[in-house]
């Protein structure tokens, strides 16, 4: 049976959704506005009302990428602990909370537990919603991403298998020209980039070219459909630039990454330090003296931003450190081996 919202609940739900859409369309969203809705919902509906919890979820989701990963993990751990008894295990909000918890547990350093939580989540969603359901596909690709990032050869192989399963399910359910299908294809791009950054030159080029072509295509589609400053559009530009680095097209990568960085300033910073990291790498590779100085400055900034956001010893933190060292040590353009060593850790 559907739980019909009361008029008061429906109004809050639509208010939150209206704000989420403004954010999704690349308008600058003040998280304070979402917090305001949450405060009003607590007053009008009560702390434990399902729609108040939805609003709270949106606030946590918006705040998580802006702050420290450990704080986000703790916030979702506690939020999940409240949703479970109040809404039940198979409620979609409980499942979304569980998924966010897994994501931030992983990003805050407990990678193995994060992956275990994702495995459980996928099994549960397959059973509850069905294999091709929207939320099951999301969960499958979350697991694929987590495995790729842990990165043992078995993990990477399984990650590829999960994505090979996921893409056709999304095509069947949503069609090829759908943002949801593009997201799965972008996960394949990230897998190719991951592999390309770890193999020798001959194998690297083919993987990087495939990644470049798909990332460029999807970035264009996303820009046209979701907006040029949409966060997914910016992520695909960044993936495109990563591929360009591997193909020694540094100049193009620099311009693309500058565009991403200014767009991030214009909207909001997510994953602060990532764009700076790749921009530093691109600048270091052009071979221009002026760019080397800019690269060093940008790498230092990437390091500061990443260290502030993540836990000490996180791969991204070590990677930015390695990049900064490499920029300082290397004479001439920074390409291939010394660059890849930094990228590989990050």
């Amino acid at each position: 049976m559907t739980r019909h919202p009361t008029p008061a609940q429906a109004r809050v739900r639509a208010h939150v959704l209206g704000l989420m859409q403004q954010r999704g369309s690349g308008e600058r969203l003040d998280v304070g506005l979402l917090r305001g809705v949450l405060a009003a919902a607590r007053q009008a509906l009560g702390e434990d009302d399902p729609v108040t919890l939805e609003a709270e979820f949106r606030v946590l989701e918006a705040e998580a990428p802006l702050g420290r990963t450990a704080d986000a993990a703790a916030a979702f751990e506690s939020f999940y602990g409240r949703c479970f008894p109040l809404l039940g295990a198979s409620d979609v909000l409980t499942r979304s909370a569980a998924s966010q918890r897994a994501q931030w547990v992983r990003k805050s350093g407990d990678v193995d537990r994060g992956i275990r939580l994702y495995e459980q989540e996928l099994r549960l969603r397959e059973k509850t919603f069905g294999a091709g359901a929207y939320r099951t596909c999301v969960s499958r690709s979350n697991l694929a991403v987590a495995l790729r990032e842990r990165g043992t050869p078995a993990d990477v192989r399984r990650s590829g298998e999960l994505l090979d399963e996921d893409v056709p399910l999304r095509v069947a359910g949503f069609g090829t020209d759908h943002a949801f299908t593009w997201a799965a294809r972008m996960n394949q791009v990230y897998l190719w980039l991951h592999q390309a950054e770890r193999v020798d030159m001959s194998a690297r080029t083919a993987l990087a070219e495939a990644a470049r072509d798909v990332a460029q295509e999807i970035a264009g589609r996303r820009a046209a459909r979701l907006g040029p400053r949409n966060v997914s559009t910016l992520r695909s530009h960044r993936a495109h630039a990563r591929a360009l680095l591997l193909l020694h097209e540094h100049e193009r990568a620099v311009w693309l990454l500058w565009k991403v960085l200014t767009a991030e300033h214009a909207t909001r910073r997510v994953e602060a330090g990532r764009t700076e990291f790749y921009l530093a790498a691109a600048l270091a590779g052009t071979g221009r003296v002026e760019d080397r100085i800019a690269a060093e400055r940008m790498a230092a900034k990437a390091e500061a931003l990443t260290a502030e956001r993540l836990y000490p010893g996180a791969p991204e933190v070590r990677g930015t450190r390695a990049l900064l060292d490499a920029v300082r040590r290397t004479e001439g353009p920074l390409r291939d081996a010394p660059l890849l060593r930094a990228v590989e850790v990050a």
Partner: protein
Amino acid sequence: VPDGAEWRAALTRMRGDKKRHRVAVYEALAYREDRRYDSIARLVRDVGISDETFSKHFGERAKVRLMSGSSLAVALAETKDWTWWPYQDGLDDAEAGVRIRPYTSLQATVRCLAQWAQDHPGLARQCDGAPPVSAVDRTHRLLRDCGSACGRGEAAELACAAVLAAAAPVRPTALSVLNTLRPRLERLAAPPTRDPDDAERRADIVAALSDFAANVLASGGGETEGELAQVLDRLRLLLAPAR
């Protein structure tokens, strides 16, 4: 036949039994999805009114009717609209005091309509997934604000597609329904005018530069100013004659 806003105003003005009976019918149709009201006999029994009272409010002799049709169809259309109002109010809350592009507002409306359909699946399915009249009005107004010349019929078809897509077996989220409808939304809201010859290449460059300038302006200075200086340096370097 009044539009959604006029009908809402009329209902808000109503008092006494007239209003109480109507709302009781709306509540039964909206919230009692376990009961299938194929005919009015069961409905009037559940609500506790007579056939005559029902047809006085929803039949052809009723003073205010949201649409023409059988009394049950009218009651269903009014119920759809009545359940939609809080969603519309919530969207207005989200847009109060901020400047939003009509296209953003249009997307929010479609997304919210999908949410409405998922919150009221049984009701939404009735009458071939016909959307609430006020939601169609809003969609139409926003499409016009985007510069579209489309008629109300096309807006109604778009809104209906959102309601039906929300019930797809893959159990999409409201956002995913919006994504499904985006190509259609774009076609209606912004018909393509650009010719695909070599002007496109120049247009791409202009678009990229304007994106870039817009990003810098929208970021409101601060940190960006330093970075803008670096970008300009780079541009000068590229434009300078070879050394």
